[in-house]
């Protein structure tokens, strides 16, 4: 039958999606019952009390306080239940588990560029391993976009100059729609893609052909690319043990004192801001000598936009442990995309 083939419910690919569905069904049931009640009242009254003669007598009924209170309070209580349940469901999608791998997504007119922690880059696609929670950190290069995946019942507006995050825990293999849900220009309806949730074996097979470099310290990961940029942009000439700038080892997630007496948590936003506007939140005890890198980070030869460079630097600083700051004796690294064995061993 044709009708049977028309999908009327979206696919469900995460526990979060199931939670949204249950809430949706609850609200549907409550409001459906209310609507049905109104419809029955209308139909019933219209049938029972249709005008019989031109001289019908009607009773003079002015109202009822009890009824007014009843039909104000009852809906309100139900609405508040919806509110509370809605908050619970919303909260579940709010904060990612701390150990979830972080995937960076950069939106631009009109494509989604995803960046896995292992260095794999994808455009308009995202391959996820089943039952592996992932955290997405998203930013836009131009206008507001929105990263919406109906199968996860999730959607988040992607803003310029600000990182937003969401997370998924996919639990069903398959390919699902990815949409841009915020009008972003002519190609808005082309800013779509696929989310592929894969079983472990399939995922590994897919990864096999994708990973730039398979093993060793030069693993081609996002953080490693960030490390190369860290040297290329001469960050390491100051940010080192004897340098004129704070050493960045282990700084991620800590709270640092600022010159004006305030403090800042070292997160994506703070690093981004400090690279673009170094004079704004200066680390206590250091001079504000760092030049701004605003407008200097995009590198067409590497195919990197400013935001893509920034997420690499962030990924690098995030993983930078004690004693891992690249030293100046290292040879200047080759451009990213060239053979990657150079640089580390020499």
């Amino acid at each position, binding site marked *: 039958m044709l009708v049977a083939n028309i999908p009327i419910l979206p696919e469900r690919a995460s526990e979060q999606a199931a939670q949204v569905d249950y809430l949706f069904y609850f609200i549907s049931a409550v409001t459906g019952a209310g609507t049905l009640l*109104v419809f029955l009242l209308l139909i019933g009254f219209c049938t029972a*009390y*249709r005008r019989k003669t031109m001289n019908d*007598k*009607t009773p003079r009924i002015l109202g009822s306080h009890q009824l*007014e209170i009843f039909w104000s309070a009852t809906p*309100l209580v139900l609405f508040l239940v919806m*509110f509370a349940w809605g908050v619970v469901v919303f909260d579940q999608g709010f904060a990612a588990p701390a150990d979830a791998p972080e995937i960076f997504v950069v939106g631009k007119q009109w494509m989604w560029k995803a960046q896995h922690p292992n260095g794999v880059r994808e455009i308009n696609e995202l391959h996820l391993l089943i039952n592996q929670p992932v955290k997405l950190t998203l930013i836009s290069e131009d206008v507001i976009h929105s990263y919406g995946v109906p199968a996860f019942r*999730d959607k988040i507006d992607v803003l310029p100059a600000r990182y937003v995050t969401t997370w998924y825990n996919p639990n069903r293999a398959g390919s699902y729609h990815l949409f841009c*849900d915020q009008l972003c220009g002519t190609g808005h309806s082309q800013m779509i893609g696929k989310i592929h949730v894969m079983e472990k074996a399939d995922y590994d097979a897919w990864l096999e052909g994708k990973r730039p470099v398979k093993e060793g310290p030069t693993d081609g990961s996002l953080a490693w690319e960030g490390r190369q940029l860290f040297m290329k942009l001469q960050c390491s000439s100051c940010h080192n043990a004897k340098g004129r700038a704070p050493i960045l080892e282990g700084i991620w997630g800590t709270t640092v004192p600022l010159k004006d007496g305030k403090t800042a948590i070292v997160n994506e936003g703070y690093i981004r801001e400090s690279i673009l506007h170094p004079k704004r939140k200066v680390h206590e005890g250091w001079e504000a000598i760092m030049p701004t890198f605003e407008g200097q980070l995009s590198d067409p030869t590497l195919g990197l936009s400013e935001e893509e460079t920034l997420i690499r630097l962030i990924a690098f600083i995030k993983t930078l442990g004690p004693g891992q700051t690249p030293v100046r004796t290292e040879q200047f690294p080759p451009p990213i995309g060239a053979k990657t064995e150079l640089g580390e061993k020499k």
Partner: protein
Amino acid sequence: MSTISALHTANHHAPSGPAAKTNYLTDGYSWKSWLLTVDHKRIGIMYLVSVTAFFLIGMAAAGLIRYNLISPSGMLTADQYNKVFTAHGIVMVFLFLVPVIPGVFGNFFIPIMIGAKDMAFPKLNLLSWYVYMAGAFFACYALLIGGVDTGWTLYPPYSTRSSTNVAPVAVAIFIAGFSSILTGLNIVVTVHRMRCPGMTWFRMPLFVWAMYATSLIMLLATPVLAVTVSLLAVERLAGIGIFDPKLGGDPLLFQHMFWFYSHPAVYIMILPGMGIISEVITCFSRKNIFGYKAVAWSSVGIAVVGFLVWGHHMFVAGQGYYSALVFSLLSMFVAVPSAIKVFNWSATLYKGSITFQAPMLYALGFIALFTVGGVTGLFLSTMGTDRHLHDTYFVIAHFHFTMVGGMVLAYFAGLHFYWPKMTGKMYSDFWSRIAAILMCVGFFMTFVPQFVLGYMGMPRRYHQYPPEWQVLNVLSSAGSTVLALGYLFPFTYLIHSIFAGKPAGSNPWGATGIEWTDTTSPPVTHNFEKLPVVTEMPYEYSLPTAPKPTFSYDLPTGDVAKEEHTHVH
């Protein structure tokens, strides 16, 4: 004004009645007597003509939208489609939905309903029409020189980067907003200062209450929109501005300020409709309104609480978590006054004497559709579900159920209810009922599939969509043709009635209210021969003194009804 002179002629050839007295329509026939009039009734008619024109333009754009979505790959180009839905939004919101009932019925009936000779500021009233037309001019100018592709919400940074004509649209919105401020101001002062002897606050018709609440929103919300689009225009013209993320500006600030107006604005659109429904339901069931004060205060309640909920448009836009929490909670409260109204209207029908003339069919359609539109709003004000439904066709379906299913049906209810009073002519009973039914059927067909599409995740403003959604989209497009057909009917038979309609008599529906009992159809220039004095509550249909309908009702045995009618007298 050939139609008007035709009407005049028709009046003279009317078979019954004395020689026509000078009414507001026969009081001068020149262009000047219309374009420079300060008579609120003529200004109301001028609004009627102009909003109808913009309704047709908006409808044409809607037709193109549905035409495009017949095919998953789109029938128009992406750029054309973006411009078409933007035109649809801007024309329908700013040039039709916001001004329509305040401009047409507010102007025409508020002074008559409260027993005044005119609005408090007649010249300002005329000015507001001209300002509205100036705004409309800029909007049309923007659309004609190439259109706008930002959506009616004009979110920056896209609206500051788009190469289309955002600035003229910002000017248009600013000017049209000014017009609605002037209308609102006029209505509030009129209601406060111009009521006739005996017309206390709680003897006012509920339409006046609803218009009063609407006007409060117009006065308090519109200026914020004006300053917002001004800042946007500056940003666009200077290439730099306060919503610019490059400088550290926050695009969400625009959204906050925009929705501070645009959420209350949906109540500007729906509240006047609710007022009309209260008038029609009582008249055609010949009952007092159930819970007069509850309905009156719920209008004011909606107006006030409606200001506290705008952030539910921004749950996933990046606003703070606690902000979202507060807005979601407050949104739950705004649903209550609407529920109160729906239950009170339903209860009004109880033990009534109900007939189903066109105004009543529209009103019943309104209650049904508005209920669906209202309850689906709950899915969107609940944070957990909005995260999935935000910016999908679910939202589209929801607000079209309230704005089109609700507001436009209420407008047609009002148009059919008051048409005899405004023109003195009665339209075709048969065709008007067919049109009402057609509109409801077409509406359901158009927008119910969109709820399903929305829950499946189809994003709004998409010129192309995945092929598995085609069946539902085609169904929706098919429904829209039925809907469009329904809309075309009234244009035909209403215009026909001006030339060939039977004289309506001063009170065909047997309605209470001084606009029916104390003045002729059409009303005389200064509304009343003798200033009325009000002595009772509105809607006293159950009292023996209630006026009787002169309209020949099409009851199952039509002749019996007539006999009984004559029998009564």
